[in-house]
């Protein structure tokens, strides 16, 4: 094995090792479970070392470097079908690996403090490592089947982690829900794999992308569509997004990991990986863009009405993922990956910050109960918060940075990536295929950008500005603010690191026109574009500089406008009064939003209920009569024969021996005579 293969297998195997050590040792030894610093260190190291290796690969890889293929062994070989456990390190996968292990490591570190008092500490870290292992398989795989292994692996881990506090039925249900909705998408993905294999005869990305001509245009459309449906499951797009907000039931660091940095972005990664195939079917691209834009705006409007801080963030994630799909559908794969990266920074930060807030609120509740006061409230409900910025300065500052970044205020991370997505959507609108539709999608994108700035600042102001509302709401909780305190260092260090990344992350992809306007040089200076140039098949950006300037100005005005209005309404921390005003203004529309478009009820009525009823009426009967019937008939025939032949059995050995001798004599006499 050469050194690259060894290092690659280390990246993959270390998290697995961490999972095995913490999981098996924790399972077998009670005293080990108490050694929390050891457990935390193992889990953190097994993610940090892969990160360091990924950095090493990244440093040594040029933008034109050939992909490194690390073949470990042949996994499946049947006839002409052969799949290896092989990993591919190229510009795209190393970018994802850096995000997964880097942000993943920060979240691991944060979890040390956040989960310290949890009984299942060892189990939590074992699952977390397994998750990283699966995710690394997903992003590093060099073929579709191995990717699918990781794809299912993260599905399993999300189920385990969302339902981590499994003694609460609601949490278990949320875990199952995530699992089932993902299965729907996975089925489509599987069919896409079969179709691909039928035409190409191989599942390696290399072979698929080099023999795209072998796939008829019709099937390219279907493969693209099916892969996309798979991606809608994992990346929580319409119509399969309803699992993600419920998935907030897990510990907050899980939400940060799954819902910001890793699992939900795997759909975007997959489509970027197969981008040369997608650009060949503009219809699929259009469908992706439409679904993405719709998801973005639908989730953004729901986010306006939520009071649970983690739910606001969850809908915000869905909305931002919609943005990424809008980018994919507009042929801006690099921009989509760019947004994946920046979003990983600020969304992980937002989730971890909210975790810090929830942590503090839970302590308040706990301390009040220690004092003998019977105070119960939802520690995630922002209506009980307000004024937290004095008590939790680090959390407040980092949360504010992330909010500015996601709102799209220059020059923080979210601005450049979001602006590039909008520019490419507009660019696709100038194209020949479905131009006016893309312009319409661009308008949706702009409206969503406004809503994003608005609801995110509503959240920040409601949580941190004004006065602490708990004592006002519950009279028994008077003086509760003295229990508020900042989170421990192990939690604030990741916050500040992610805060720094959220500030500078955007400079990865400063658009070309911005610099060329000042330097009058037409060179391509966009780092991320140059980096991914050989891997993804982006559309050409054919807009003139003046149009790009106008587009950028529009998005700045929109974002600032959103922030300003949010400040006017929520700046004083008057969340509920202003929500009431909004509700008055929009009436039935607001009702729909806060009812989440009744999508859950819709699925319940249209899909779940008929299936359950059908199973009870039809399938249960089929099972009892037909399936059990066949099995019982086979058994019955055997019993029938038995009931006849058992009378021959006397159980007396001598008579058997006599029969044997007589038989031999008979045979011999027949032979002789």
């Amino acid at each position, binding site marked *: 094995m050469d050194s690259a293969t060894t290092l690659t297998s280390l990246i993959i195997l270390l998290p697995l090792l961490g999972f095995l050590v913490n999981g098996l040792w924790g399972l077998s030894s009670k005293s080990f479970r108490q050694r929390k610093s050891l457990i935390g260190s193992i889990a953190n190291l097994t993610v940090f070392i892969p990160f360091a290796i990924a950095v090493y690969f990244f440093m040594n890889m040029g933008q034109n470097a050939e992909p490194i293929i690390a073949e470990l062994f042949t996994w499946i070989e049947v006839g002409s079908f052969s799949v290896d456990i092989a990993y591919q390190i190229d510009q795209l996968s190393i970018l994802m690996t850096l995000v997964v292990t880097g942000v993943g490591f920060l979240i691991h570190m944060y979890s040390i403090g956040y989960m310290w008092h949890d009984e299942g500490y060892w189990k939590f870290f074992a699952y977390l490592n397994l998750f990283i292992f699966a995710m690394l398989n997903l992003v590093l795989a060099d073929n579709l089947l191995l990717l699918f292994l990781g794809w299912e692996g993260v599905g399993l881990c999300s189920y385990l982690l969302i339902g981590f506090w499994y003694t609460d039925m609601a949490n278990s249900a949320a875990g199952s829900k995530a699992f089932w909705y993902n299965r729907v998408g996975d089925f489509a993905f599987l069919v896409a794999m079969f179709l691909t294999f039928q035409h190409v005869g191989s599942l390696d990305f290399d072979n698929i992308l080099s023999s795209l001509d072998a796939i008829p245009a019709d099937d390219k459309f279907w493969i693209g569509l099916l892969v996309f449906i798979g991606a809608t499951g994992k990346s929580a797009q319409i119509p399969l997004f309803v699992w993600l907000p419920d998935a907030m039931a897990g510990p907050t660091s899980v939400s940060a990991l799954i819902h910001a940095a890793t699992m939900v972005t795997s759909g975007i990664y997959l489509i970027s990986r197969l981008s040369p195939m997608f650009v060949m079917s503009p219809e699929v691209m259009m469908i992706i863009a439409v679904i993405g834009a719709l998801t973005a705006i639908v989730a953004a409007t729901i986010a306006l009405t939520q009071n649970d801080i983690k739910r606001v963030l969850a809908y915000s994630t869905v909305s931002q993922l919609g943005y990424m799909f809008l980018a994919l559908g507009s042929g801006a794969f690099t921009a989509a990956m760019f947004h994946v990266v920046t979003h990983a920074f600020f969304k992980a930060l937002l989730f971890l910050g909210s975790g810090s807030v929830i942590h503090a609120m839970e302590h308040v509740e706990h301390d009040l109960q220690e004092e003998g006061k019977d105070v119960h409230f939802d520690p995630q409900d922002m209506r009980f918060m307000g004024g937290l910025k004095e008590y939790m300065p680090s959390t407040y500052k980092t949360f504010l940075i992330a909010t500015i970044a996601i709102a799209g205020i220059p020059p923080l991370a979210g601005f450049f990536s979001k602006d590039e997505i909008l520019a490419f959507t507009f660019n696709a609108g100038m194209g020949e295929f479905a131009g006016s539709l893309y312009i319409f999608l661009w308008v949706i994108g702009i409206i969503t950008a406004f809503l994003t700035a608005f609801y995110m600042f509503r959240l920040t102001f409601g949580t941190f500005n004004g006065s602490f509302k708990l004592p006002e709401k519950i009279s028994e909780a008077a003086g509760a603010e003295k229990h508020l305190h900042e989170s421990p260092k192990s939690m604030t260090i990741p916050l500040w690191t992610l805060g720094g990344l959220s500030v500078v992350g955007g400079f990865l992809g400063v658009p070309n026109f911005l610099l060329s306007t000042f330097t009058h040089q037409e060179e391509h200076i966009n780092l991320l574009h140059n980096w991914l140039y050989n891997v993804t098949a982006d559309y050409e950006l054919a807009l003139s500089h003046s149009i790009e300037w106008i587009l950028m100005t529009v998005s700045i005005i929109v974002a600032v406008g959103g922030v300003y209005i949010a400040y006017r309404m929520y700046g004083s921390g008057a969340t509920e009064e202003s929500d009431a005003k909004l509700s008055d203004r929009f009436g039935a529309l607001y009702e729909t939003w806060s009812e989440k478009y009744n999508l859950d009820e819709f699925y319940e009525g249209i899909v779940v209920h008929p299936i359950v009823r059908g199973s009870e009426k039809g399938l249960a009967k089929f099972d009892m009569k037909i399936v059990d019937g066949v099995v019982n008939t086979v058994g019955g025939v055997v019993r029938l024969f038995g009931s006849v032949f058992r009378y021959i059995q006397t159980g007396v*050995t001598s008579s058997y*021996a006599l029969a044997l001798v007589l038989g031999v004599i008979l045979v011999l006499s027949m032979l002789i005579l």
Partner: protein
Amino acid sequence: MISIDWFLALSALLFCIGIIGVLIRKNAIVIFMCVELMLNAVNLSLISFSSHYGNIDGQILVFFSLAVAAAEAVVGLAIIIAIFRNNLSVDINKVSLLRW
């Protein structure tokens, strides 16, 4: 030299004694011994023919049957001991637990 007929006659006699033993005795161990007797009767005729025709094959077959008989005796005795532990008897006619 004694003619082969005498050997074959002895072999047939031993074999018949073995069969009768197996058929009429109730003690499992005796039955077992009778089976061995039958086996050795056959071995005797094999060796006789082998020596008569000057062909070594028959003697090699005897080695095989001896080896197999030894293995069989191990298993058989183990079963008989197990039966004895359960029934405190090796009467073969009492082992009919699984009969209808």
